[in-house]
């Protein structure tokens, strides 16, 4: 699946998007997988209460299932307007 990062999450991880092969069942599982990869992921995902996640461009909670999802996006709370 495509994993996208925005704002300071993108800056901390160091890239805007990447293709990830995963068998993670939920967003939380995917986060745990990413954190185990490298320090920069571990730092970016240290506090998921400071993050938001969207699956195929719809906001969801971190316990949402990933089955059939093509695009996951992680970002801080939005600051539009």
């Amino acid at each position, binding site marked *: 699946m495509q994993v*996208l990062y*925005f*704002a*300071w999450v*993108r800056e901390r991880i160091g890239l805007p998007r990447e293709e990830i092969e995963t068998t993670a069942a939920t967003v939380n599982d995917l986060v745990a997988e990413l954190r185990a990869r490298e320090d920069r992921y571990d730092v970016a995902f240290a506090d998921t209460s400071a993050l938001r996640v*969207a699956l195929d*461009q719809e*906001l969801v909670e971190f316990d949402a299932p990933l089955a059939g999802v093509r695009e996951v*996006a992680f*970002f*801080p*709370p*939005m*600051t*539009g*307007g």
Partner: protein
Amino acid sequence: MIRVQAMPFDAGGELNVFSKSVEGAGAVVSFTGVVRDVSGGLSAMEIEHYPGMTEKALGAIRADAMQRWQLVDALVIHRFGRLDAGEVIMMVATASRHRKDAFEAAEFLMDFLKSRAPFWKKEVTTDGADWVVSRDEDEAALKRW
């Protein structure tokens, strides 16, 4: 109508076009957001967004407003990219038969696009650049609707 663009726009001109298109509505309300000049010298605002989701989220918020209030039309224009102090960031305009619907719907649109549309602002000052942090009040503002 929803527009997400990097290009500057003339809020006054857009409002005139909108008002003309809803002629006879009776009430038109608009809000314009401008890059403020903070002490310490703001040199620019950088606005990042999530192409695709931004349009979807704004469309859904607008559709929700159209359903909740008796609106003739609602307009949302939001920019992204690098903006200088004093530049227009975004505008909303609503039109209805009576002012209450137009006022409330405009506030609703602002509240939701502040924390439910995927935009992230970064303030660039002479001291460096910092992401704007969302405020608890913005989240709390959604609960009244």
